[in-house]
């Protein structure tokens, strides 16, 4: 796979990957020290290659529907670290003016939309973007992420059926994480191959190693090309491992490790494997990679400092966020009428 990808692109991927990890580690540090509020006191590793590979294979005009693990896609699509961290700190300079928080940041200018934290119901909205693209002949592709946790949500199935029935340019990206620490999907499934569900909706499905950036990127590229040409939806199943690091001070990282797979996964495996390829193929030297690490760490540090000093959103803007008309009197009365 890597042979088809230019050295510049691979080096670019490395920088994005380092930025994603630096941002996540910073979030974990801030949360542990109670400097930021977290909707969930844990951070996941293992889905970075999926976000990066899929986003890199899309055009800027394409749309991404995120799940709760949205930071990776945001950074992969060129999101501003300052605006991401300001949102995480709940500040007015945040992408969503501090009302959304770290989960589900929505950034229309980057084509990133996000819905629910857990149930991935934003997939349904994806079909609307796809319908609009088809009706306006915009040739956009909509990549909608969902987790293996949510493959049994009715709305995911409704959306697949609608996408297929209406010939919509949708890529359903299933993040099939083998170590998900939630309701364990295997308990509730006869078939563990989520991709095969595409048969019921007359779609193509491809399974890829979700921990290999180059594979995800190349595979997505070829699927997206087909979707753009034929307006037929498809499923991309990305199999990955994951590591959930609890951020409560009462739990150590090692206790929360939950590895069932034969291959040891330490959270940084994706990056380590990718770095190895870059060294072997003489794309980047160790020194060059270290320079990238220093550069992105400084960017993250600056974003954190700026966000800490940022201003809180103003209460009078609350109804402006909600309605296109001026309903500020609603807040005054405290009631709806």
């Amino acid at each position: 796979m890597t042979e088809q990808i230019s050295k510049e692109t691979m080096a670019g991927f490395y920088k994005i990957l380092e930025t994603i990890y630096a941002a996540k580690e910073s979030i974990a540090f801030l949360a542990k020290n109670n400097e930021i509020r977290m909707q969930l006191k844990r951070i996941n590793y293992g889905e970075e290659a999926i976000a990066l590979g899929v986003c890199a294979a899309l055009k800027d005009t394409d749309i991404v529907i995120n799940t709760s693990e949205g930071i990776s896609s945001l950074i992969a699509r060129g999101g501003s670290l300052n605006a991401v961290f300001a949102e995480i700190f709940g500040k007015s300079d945040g992408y969503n003016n501090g009302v959304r928080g770290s989960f589900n940041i929505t950034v229309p200018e980057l084509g990133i939309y996000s819905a629910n934290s857990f149930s991935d119901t934003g997939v349904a909205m994806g079909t609307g973007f796809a319908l609009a693209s088809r009706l306006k002949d915009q040739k956009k592709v909509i990549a909608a992420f969902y987790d293996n946790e949510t493959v049994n949500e009715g709305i995911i199935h409704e959306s697949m059926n609608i996408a297929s029935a209406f010939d919509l340019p949708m890529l359903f990206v299933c993040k099939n994480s083998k170590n998900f620490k939630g309701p364990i999907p295997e308990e509730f499934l006869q078939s563990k191959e989520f991709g095969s569900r595409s048969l019921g909706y007359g779609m193509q499905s491809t399974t890829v190693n979700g921990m290999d950036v180059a594979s995800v990127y190349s595979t997505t590229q070829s699927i997206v090309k087909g979707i753009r040409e034929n307006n037929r939806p498809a499923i991309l199943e990305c199999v990955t491992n994951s590591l959930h690091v609890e951020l409560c001070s009462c739990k150590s990282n090692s206790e929360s490790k939950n590895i069932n797979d034969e291959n040891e996964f330490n959270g940084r495996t994706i990056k380590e494997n990718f770095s190895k390829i870059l060294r072997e193929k003489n794309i980047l030297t160790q020194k060059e990679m270290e320079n990238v690490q220093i550069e992105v760490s400084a960017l993250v540090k600056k974003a954190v400092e700026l966000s800490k000093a940022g201003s809180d959103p103003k209460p009078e803007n609350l109804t402006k966020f909600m309605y296109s008309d001026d309903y500020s009197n609603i807040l005054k009365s405290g009631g709806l009428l």
Partner: protein
Amino acid sequence: MREIRYLQAVAEALNNEMQINDEVLVMGEDVRESLRGVTKGLYSTYGKDRVIDFPISEQGMIGCGIGSAISGFRPVIEFQINEFTFFAFEQLILQSQRLRFYSGGKIKIPLTYIVPGSGARGGISGQHSDNPYSFLIQGGMKVVIPSCAYDAKGLLISAIRDNDPVAVFLPTRVLAEKGEVPEEQYTVAIGKADIKKTGSDITVVATGHCVNIALEVARKLEEEKISVEVFDPRTLFPFDREMLKESISKTGKVVIIDDSPVSCGFACEVSALIGEEYFNLIKAPVKIIARADVPIPFSEPLEECVLPNGAKLENAIHELMGRANA
């Protein structure tokens, strides 16, 4: 002025908006065949790309509406049956209503939901007889409920042109009513109430088809020299509190008649508003005539027990006016 039926006024509004704006889409289940008559003739005029039939999957349909609304379309989603709102609550509230807020006001979602045949038609039991607007109001959604053909056309046009989701409830008991409706386009502003009959003794706040009930009772009570003012909010949220204040300032007495469940419902909210803001203007306790807190039963006498009606309203007015009930 010509008279047309309420349902024709609704269809006319929709057709007008589709004609002048290519971005208005109609989505629903059986909108091509037009089971309810709202979308009659639209499919042959505007074709499959603008009049879009969906498989029976309400959540998916609304999600699709949301995405296309953010992309610049103005979808009008028809719920064939009022209870479909329950099937799709997550998409209605958590997504269509809240996404603009969650984005920090960065996106707009111009989406109209129409619920033709809301409320009890009579004899169709508990799963086709609801008026589920109080839930939507609590979710923050703009809700209108036109009581006559004129308001129906004007409010639907306003809803389609609005940049936020608006739910338009079209009560089943007024769909066949005739009224004067101009042929040209006009709007009735969202958030603007209307005095359907002026009076000086008592204000009846009536919603949807209850406006007709109130008008009938008001006419009857004229013989008893009771002057009833009929206040039609037209928009349930945002509510026109200024016009209500004016009416109460004049009459000092209020009955609210509304065809949705009483507890935590729309009528209670209006009553709470009066108690909190306009207590100094009222001379008697507020009375509420609304649905009992049970589903609609099939049996005709039982159904009548649950629903608001003219006799109940008349009794309430008599009580407030200190007159003995007949």
